[in-house]
């Protein structure tokens, strides 16, 4: 079974992001970049499927400018077999990425596509679902456990108030939730080997997709600073404030 995993280059989760002075975007100058944590979980799951003998090949794909090849290399160091880079510049919205991924799906015909449920920069939570619609494939989003059984894929999803189990027919799409697995660290030998693995580069034209934007970003501003709290004198004052100022009790 061929597994396609999408990985996105995002600001490292340890970095405290700042808005640019002119409010047009987040300041990415000299900021450490990394593979999106949910995508890393997707890579780990694919590699585990390969180690279990379920997957035969794991392909890591990323859409973006040239530097996102670093994140493909990370996926290769974690155990993916080869990489595909769809080179596209600028701000890419989920629909465009989903269309480009659809192009890769058509080329590679994977049985399973695993994506992060969302990326920690845009927090859109759309790409996997859109790809499902475009590729006409069933989807199991927010997966906390997956299991391949014959030509079916059982997905346990984290939904409000509990867990839901779905059975999907393959080929299918899965988006990962935080608890699906705990990704490994890439070892030094595997980092060195990753340099030699195959990495193909496609342009959007190669995939027959035109990159057009439907959404424009108007403004980026930091959240309002939290004001200091106060100490209440007694319970009566607390109740009064909850009732009349915060209006959370009546």
């Amino acid at each position, binding site marked *: 079974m061929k597994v396609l995993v999408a990985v996105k280059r995002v600001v490292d989760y340890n970095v405290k992001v700042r808005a640019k002075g002119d409010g047009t975007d987040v300041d990415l100058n000299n900021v450490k970049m990394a593979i999106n944590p949910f995508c890393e979980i997707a890579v780990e799951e694919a590699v585990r499927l390969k180690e279990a003998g379920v997957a035969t090949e794991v392909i890591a794909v990323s859409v973006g400018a040239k530097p996102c090849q670093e994140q493909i*290399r*990370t996926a290769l160091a974690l155990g993916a077999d080869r990489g595909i880079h769809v080179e596209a510049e600028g701000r890419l919205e989920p629909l465009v990425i989903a269309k480009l991924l659809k192009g890769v799906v058509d080329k590679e015909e994977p049985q399973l596509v695993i994506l992060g449920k969302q990326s920690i920069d845009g927090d859109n939570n759309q790409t996997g679902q859109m790809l499902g619609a475009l590729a006409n494939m069933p989807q199991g989003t927010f997966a906390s456990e997956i299991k391949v059984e014959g030509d079916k894929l059982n997905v346990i999803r984290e939904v409000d108030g509990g867990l839901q189990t779905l059975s999907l027919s393959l080929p299918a799409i899965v988006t990962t939730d935080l608890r699906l697995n705990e990704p490994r660290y890439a*070892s*030094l030998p595997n980092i*060195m080997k990753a340099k030699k693995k195959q990495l193909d580069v496609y342009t959007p034209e190669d995939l027959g997709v035109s990159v057009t934007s439907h959404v424009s970003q108007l403004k980026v501003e930091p959240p309002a600073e939290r004001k200091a709290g106060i100490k209440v004198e007694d319970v009566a004052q607390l109740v009064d404030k909850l009732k009349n100022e915060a209006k959370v009790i009546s």
Partner: protein
Amino acid sequence: MALDFDSARLPNPFITAEHEAWRTQLRRFIDTEIVPSAEDWDEAGHIPIELWPKAAAVGLLGLGYAEEFGGTREGIDSWHSWITNEELARIGVGGIPASLMVHGIGLPPVINWGSEAMKQAVAPAVLAGEKHIALGITEPGGGSDVASLSTTAVRDGDHYIVNGSKTYITGGMRANWVSTAVRTGGEGARGVSMLLIPTDAEGFSRTALDRKQGWWASDTATLYFDNVRVPVDQLIGTENQGFLVIMTNFNSERMAMAAGMEALGRVCLEEAVAWARERKTFGKRLADHQVIRHKIAQMKQKLNATQAYIRLCYESIENGNPNPGDIALLKVQASETMEFCAREAMQILGGIGYMRGSRVERIYREVRVNAIGGGSEEIMRDLAARQYGV
């Protein structure tokens, strides 16, 4: 701009995306497997034996060693070593890298000078983290004066009979083998040989030196050899050529220590700056007092100089023309920088820095082991002066 561990590192054009990938993965390993327990291990006086196989699996133990022994050498250069030493120092518990990476001084004599059979018997097991090797040079009667060591190995048929003792041996309690400097010939440097001694040999015994100023997590030992019979094929290199074996070991040990010390100085800077921005005195932040600002700037100034010097020495190693005198003085530069940063960070932190559990408190206690171990500042200056033909 912040002055944390990463942003206080000067740019280095030799660092590639692959180097950064190693830093990222190694830091994840360290932050997951080591940092949460580091303080407890230090207080307990040892690190768990399970850590070695884990460090082997991530590629830490095998870095720079040949693939045939289970290491990773292809594509590895000095910049990987620098990153590794920096990241291990960043834990701020010096006994952990000292103990975990002690094969870095014990194994190279075997790899560089040992017989094929010896390499095969020792290197794969050590690099897999299953067995342990230490380096035995210093004796109760003398340390840096290697040429006058007095542990003897007397030839008796196809064995040497070893008598004497070694002390301040890092990893000595856990070691399965000790690469040991012994006297096989006459007086002076030309009578010294290196012998690989298994610690299960009859007549070998050891005691722990567990009350130290710092490096608590590191096991340190005194070793005793009482008529220990060692087969002659355990000779590392040729007889009476031990001095050369020992000397070729020193450059990489000193580079590793220098890189670690600079990084420890940077940890002190990071902690001091964070505190100076938080703490308020006389109506303003510590960081707004000129006396504190100058301390911070001076720490950064010395760290900058040391980083540039480290880079120059690693570059000379990469180019195949390292200067042992420059490397000896780099070790002094690094220990003086670490000492300065530990002192100034402690002054900025004040009372909180004096309490156990702060990285600065521990680093302050571990300045001396760095300034003395691996060649004291005095010996380093003397060696450099001789190298420069003064």
